[in-house]
């Protein structure tokens, strides 16, 4: 995940005469608190030549938002003696908890597969780092299963129409985060691409954090299990008892 970003930075430094991309994001910190139902990230920015002029020809924009990487186990169900059971599994070291790709048109028309996989410009180009087996024929169905599962959860998506470019200078993209987004550090990378080559790129960082009551509860549950459990028990006993007393009189 870091490697493409570092490459981009190196390339950016090596070619000062290319256009400059200035990315920005509507929220650098997303607070997950009581009543959180998801967030709509607006990613926008400008592309200019070093002289401050609009770039003289058309280009495409691809925005990749990636959540914190996690190690996961993907399990496949198979029918054994008539019963569907988890029969095979595969481990991946770094499956992002969230992954979204927005572009101004379908990525297949913007870059070739090689460039797409270098910059992870699409769900089929995710670098999941499988653990153990190095047989791609074995890993591929699990990787596809993982992506399909995360898509159903709303945590992975691709939208080839989500980026609009105005007057070759300004671009904007909207990416929806569902309420189930994992907390942690996110990166949003923006690529300006022309004729299959990355002209310029920029990176912004976003932090998703639990706040207030939600944070208190999650923190207590994790670090003060005994007190938290006693709290849950006291709450349930008290509510059952109060309801019993109230209605016994009616």
């Amino acid at each position: 995940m870091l490697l493409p970003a570092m490459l981009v930075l190196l390339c950016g430094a090596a070619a000062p005469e290319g256009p400059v991309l200035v990315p920005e994001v509507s929220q650098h910190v997303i607070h997950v608190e009581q009543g959180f139902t998801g967030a709509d990230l607006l990613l926008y920015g400008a592309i200019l030549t070093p002289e401050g002029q609009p770039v003289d020809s058309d280009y495409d924009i691809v925005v990749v938002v990636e959540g914190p990487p996690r190690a996961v186990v993907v399990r496949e169900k198979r029918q054994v003696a008539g019963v569907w059971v988890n029969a095979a599994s595969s481990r991946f070291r770094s499956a992002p908890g969230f992954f979204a790709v927005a572009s101004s048109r379908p990525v297949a028309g913007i870059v070739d597969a090689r460039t797409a996989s270098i910059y992870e410009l699409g769900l089929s180009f995710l670098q999941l780092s499988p653990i153990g087996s190095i047989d791609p024929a074995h890993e591929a169905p699990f990787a596809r299963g993982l992506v399909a599962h995360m898509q159903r959860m709303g945590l992975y998506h691709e939208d080839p129409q989500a980026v609009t470019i105005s007057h070759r200078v300004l671009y904007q993209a909207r990416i929806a985060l569902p309420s189930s987004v994992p907390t942690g550090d996110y990166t949003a990378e923006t690529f300006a691409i022309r004729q299959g080559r990355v002209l310029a790129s920029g990176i912004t960082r976003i932090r998703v954090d639990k706040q207030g009551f939600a944070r208190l509860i999650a923190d207590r549950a994790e670090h003060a299990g005994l007190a938290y459990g006693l709290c849950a028990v006291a709450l349930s006993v008290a509510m059952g008892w109060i309801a019993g007393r109230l209605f016994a009189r009616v």
Partner: protein
Amino acid sequence: MDVYLPIANLAVNGLVIVGLGALTGLLSGMFGVGGGFLTTPLLIFYGVPPTVAAASAASQVTGASVSGALAHARRGGIDYQMGAVLVAGGVVGTGLGALLFQLLQALGQIDTTINLLYVILLGSIGTLMAVESLGAVRARRTGLARPARRRRHHPLVASLPMRWRFYRSGLYISPLAPLLLGMLTGMLTMLMGIGGGFILVPAMLYVLGMSVTVVVGTSLFQILFVTIATTMMHALTTHAVDLVLASLLLVGSVLGAQAGAFLAQKAKPDVLRLVLAMIVLAVAVRMALGLGWQPDEIFTVVVQ
């Protein structure tokens, strides 16, 4: 009404959860079962992670059984001696259940095991209840008395050593039998997020042969303490108890339980048991379809 569940990491419609609690509360008030066997699968179906669903449903069952147990205690419908033995077994059972849970989770077979347990337990108990209550309904219609049961309790129970007198239950049996029964329900509570009342009540009646007047009260007494132990076990090991989710379920279920208790006085008991049998069988069939016909998802993802 959108509510964010901080442990499940999910926004849900709070009214749906309260409604779900009310539905299971209604069942518990009408039938004296905790209703966990319905809450857990429905929560999972709604998108709540299975462990969080089971852990939070346990505290709902606690709430639902408190008022019932109190009501029975006032009428002298609890055999505390028997209850204590059952609770002791139940607490040991939750500990064993927690170990089993971790083992199965590591093996990747926890979902299949839970679903299989649901199908086997709900299927067999639902069928038994349906047959029994149909017989009772038919006997009432035809006016013929059903043949009396020949034996008090199961011969295996009588063969266990070290007998105790349980005065309120009217029994002179070995405490090992209720201890084992308590352990079994404790394990199931930990694994499935159920109170175990629908297993405990028939077992107390037909295996132990307890006096009918103390069966429901003693079962609620055991469920109360075993679900408390389960909530604590989850809070300490899986950290999966969602207080917000549990509170929403509790609000619904304590209200539903009162409404259910009111309805139960109006309806005929054998018809009630038949309705419960149908609900139990419906859940079992739904689970069986997932196991035998087509699972909801072929690929599942677990974060490590």
